[in-house]
């Protein structure tokens, strides 16, 4: 509840395989930031249940807004995979994802 009163700031997400980066505004998820930047990030349900927006956080701090263990396997969780639609940024990050062709 008290997170409502926190002062947030924007962070940058860098796509390691595409040499592109975009800004994620305070309150936006990683996916929302990507979509606002016009990137063809794979997505479907946008509520963290389908796994379509799955990506791998290579570097930086993020926060999982829901429990990813319903969708991601233990190995994926250990390897740093995240659901972009339910990930907020706590620092600038590098991320790997397969954008839609």
């Amino acid at each position: 509840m008290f997170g409502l009163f926190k002062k947030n700031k924007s962070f940058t997400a860098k796509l390691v395989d595409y040499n592109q980066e975009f800004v994620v505004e305070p309150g936006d998820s990683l996916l929302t930031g990507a979509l606002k930047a016009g990137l063809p990030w794979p997505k479907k349900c946008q509520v963290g249940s389908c796994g379509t927006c799955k990506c791998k956080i290579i570097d930086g701090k993020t926060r999982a807004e829901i429990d990813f263990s319903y969708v991601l396997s233990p190995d994926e969780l250990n390897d740093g995979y995240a659901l972009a639609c339910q990930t907020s940024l706590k620092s600038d990050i590098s991320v790997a994802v397969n954008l839609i062709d």
Partner: protein
Amino acid sequence: MKTFYVNVRYLIVPVMTVLTIYGLFLGGIYAWTGVFLFGLNIILDTATKNIHLRADFDENGNSFGIKTFQYIVMYLMFPIFIVLQCALAWNLYQFTTSSTVAVETLVGAILSTGLWAGLGIIYGHELSHNKREGFSVSRAIMALSGASHFTYAHVYQHHLELGHQNDPATAPRGRNVYWHTWLSHFGQSKFSFDLEKQKLERHNKSFFSLDNKWILGYLYSLPSIILFVWSGGIIGILALVVVWSISNFLLEALNFMGHYGLIREAGKPVEHKHSWDNDNLFTSWFFIEIGRQGDHHVRGETYFWELDEVGAPNYEIGYFTLFLLTLIPPVFRKYTQKYLDEWDRNQASEAEKQIAKDYYEDTKHLSNNILVV
């Protein structure tokens, strides 16, 4: 001024719930306040059925909704619903120990509590789409109605399987709201059970683990059970059964009205056409825009005050008015058939038409002039 108007208009349920609580404490005829307000809402909803507003944004595209304010209100609904249950328990205690509460007062108190606990479930729904704390408050609100499983089933099943036959919350054509309530409630609970089972197996944990959200969810309902047993014994249990039945019936009625008869081809994305919109003025404000189902199911993370008209199929009446029709299944089917015909004709894909056609042919008691001649 615009900011004030956009934010205050969503306070109908909090205000009316507090009035209902006040009525329960006043007792006598005032214990029926919740029932009276429910009836009044049907009138207001029907009176405003032709008034449809769009979401409000400034010239830069920013919403007038104040997130902090709306979240404080939603979180505050949890203690308000606790007080609502306590107010009924107080009536039960008076009834069983000193007979100072008449039977008709107690009946009014039970019905009022059930109706407003059920209407309050809209906050459990809204918060189910939010982050950590909001999700937990959603679970707690739903637990007050013995439906904590809803939060997981809604996000992990309904939003994924919408319009498919394996989504218990999507009612196929011909089903009535009473049967739907049973099937959807227990179907979602079964899903939540299976979801936890699979998750715990994947993580090599026992089913009887503190990480089992299905079990924990029902444990969250224990305080309500204890309160009603303590305050009313057998009568208290019966009262709680009635309250939970009404509140879950209202919850499932919303699911029923939101998706009745709509079909989505397997593997295809959720589109606006896969949900019914009910977005007249009173329904929009009262149900905090939950009636903008078309937009909600495509942009599940969007705050309710930013949801908008998106061209989804529309029943053209509000939830309260439509709810009355659902109570009489033949009348509901007759009313909705023309809208389903229109959907089949103008919005369904060829594959969806075929699914609908097969369904009509399998269920001979139904007729559809568009697909089956």
